[in-house]
């Protein structure tokens, strides 16, 4: 199956072991190199909340993870991970909860936005199909 731009924007499902951190999900399951995560993925949402600490935010069954490169404007910049002004959106930021750490096989939806569609879409395509 080929996932086009719209599919990535709306989310592609991956069957994986959940209960891990966002960083582990990205590096181990999706095999995205750490330096790409640090340099190119400026914004990460977990279930609609911008995440600052990807080592503490936990993926669970049914989670949706959305990723973007750096965005324009006050609100765009406020969404940046650990950005200078990310505290401006504290009321919607991802809040780490202890009960989310159960390890199991589950479904995670991955959304890619803007330049990341081209940069990651093809690489992730095969992993989604291999599910």
């Amino acid at each position, binding site marked *: 199956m080929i996932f086009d*731009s*719209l599919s990535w*924007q*709306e989310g592609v499902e991956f069957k994986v072991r959940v209960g891990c951190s966002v960083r582990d999900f990205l590096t181990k399951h999706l095999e995205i190199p750490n330096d790409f995560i640090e340099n190119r993925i*400026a*914004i990460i*949402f977990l279930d*609609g*909340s*911008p995440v600052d600490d990807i080592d503490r935010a936990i993926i669970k069954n049914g989670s949706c993870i*959305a990723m*973007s*490169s*750096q*965005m*324009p*404007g*006050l*609100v*765009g*910049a*406020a*969404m940046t991970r650990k950005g*200078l*002004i990310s*505290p*401006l*959106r*504290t*009321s*919607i930021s991802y809040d780490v909860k202890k009960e989310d750490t159960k390890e199991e096989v589950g479904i995670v939806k991955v*959304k890619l*936005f*803007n*330049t990341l*569609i081209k940069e990651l879409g093809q690489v992730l395509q095969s992993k989604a199909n291999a599910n």
Partner: protein
Amino acid sequence: MGKILRINMGSEGGPTIVEEPLGNYAGLGGRGLTSAIVSKEVPPQCHPLSAENKLVIAPGLLSGTAGAMSGRLSVGCKSPLTGTIKEANSGGQPSQVLARLGYAAIVLEGKPKTDDLYKVIIKNDGVKIEKDNSLKMLPNYDLVERMKSQYGDKIACISIGPAGEMRLAAASVACTDTELRPTRHAGRGGVGAVMGSKQVKVIVLDDTGTKVRQPKDPEKFKDANKRFVEGLQKHPVTGQGLPAYGTNVLTNIINEAGAYPTYNFKQGNFAGASKISGETLAELEVKRGGVATHGCHRGCVIRCSGIFHDKDGKYLTKQPEYETVWAHGGNCGIDDLDAIAMIDFWDDNYGLDTIEMGATIAVAMEAGLAKFGDANAAIQLIHEVGKGTYLGKILGSGAAVTAKVFGIERAPVVKGQSMPAYDPRAVQGIGVTYATSTMGADHTAGYAIASNILKIGGHVDPLSPEGQIELSRNLQIATAAIDSTGMCLFIAFALLDQPETFQALIDMLNAFYGLNLTADSVTELGKSILKMEREFNMKAGFTKEHDRLPRYFYTEPIAPHNVVFKVKDEDLDKVFNW
């Protein structure tokens, strides 16, 4: 660019033209100049559509030079929408052309005693003003075609459509783009209605025979401009995100964050967001033979705009911006890019502010005039405005008036002007600026996010109320300063992360004018502009009680995060304590 062109439309025997030196206004440009003239010469208590109001059109300090990004135009007056001072900003060609013709500003004053309509023609060899009643109620596209047939295709036009002639409070002033189409608008605050009240339909500019403005130190200017362009091109936002997708790249992000006002600010997510996103828009434009990366004026190196073709591959409109796609899209429940582009075209053609009209139609939908998501009904409502029916005149007066007429509580306005595309409950920091801006709810201050001016990171904790207040204050200062240079506000994204690019901008100003400005001087310039604007507003009757969001933002939580606006009134009152 050392002179002001004053056109008194109310002189006995017909309009008169006077050219005068800048005098006390020397050193000012763009918003700095429009706000200085309005605050000094317009009685703050005057009716915005009266002879006492003035419409000031000013290129920026660097417009007309070889400097990149310098072609933004400021249009200022007392606003018929808000009653405050107003500066509305536009791209397009006129700013560069006007500056090359040597004008720091055009000031339209007085008011004709008859109902005749006029056109102004400005060339290198002089200025003419002519009565032309054949132009009455022409939409902007037809008007520009007419001007092209009369004055050739080397011109640039500043014009109003029927909405401006009808003096509707949502009327814009149109500027032609590089293809000589009236697609760029000084949209906010009803500046088109003030041009309409002066009965000037169009200002035709022709800079044939003029030269690019020369800097005091050409070598230093060239070097600074080179560093400035390199800085813009290497930054991920100005070098990649914006050129590829335009400002509409924000749709998916703001929607994912739950901060995307949907169904007249009822919820923060729109199910159809991906269908109208910048990514989808750019793909559709390229597929249909349009353009996804395009500058609104010559000299723009970011090129956040584009050209949208219809299903048959024919030109329909320019690439609609994020705020337009949101206003006519998600806020009205419409997820059809063709319909949104069609509405954008008619907004431009009738001469209407897309943000105000989108917010107004959403209010009308809540009032039951149409169903949310009904794109055809939305297009019909815009035609009502263009035709000037009674309903159309209500809608063309903006969201606040429409809500009042139809008994709707949820009018998302501050000082009578519609809020743009970010819900202040989800991102509280932007709400501070909506509430306290001298212009009514305004999005542009949210773009001037330059750490050098903002002094964020080490200077202020944005989490504390003081931090949010200081950030908003500094954003407003930075916006006012950048708006004076003629530079597009989108340069600020690169200034945020790259101090050397900010320095390059200051070096450009210094090399051009032979000055020794520093970052502090830029801050002082921004402060002095805001001070003038605040004083004008106070004299016009505005108090701190006007610096508030509508009450429902404090009481109605917005899904999915179920948050309300929590910044206290006493903190909002501190924004201008400096």
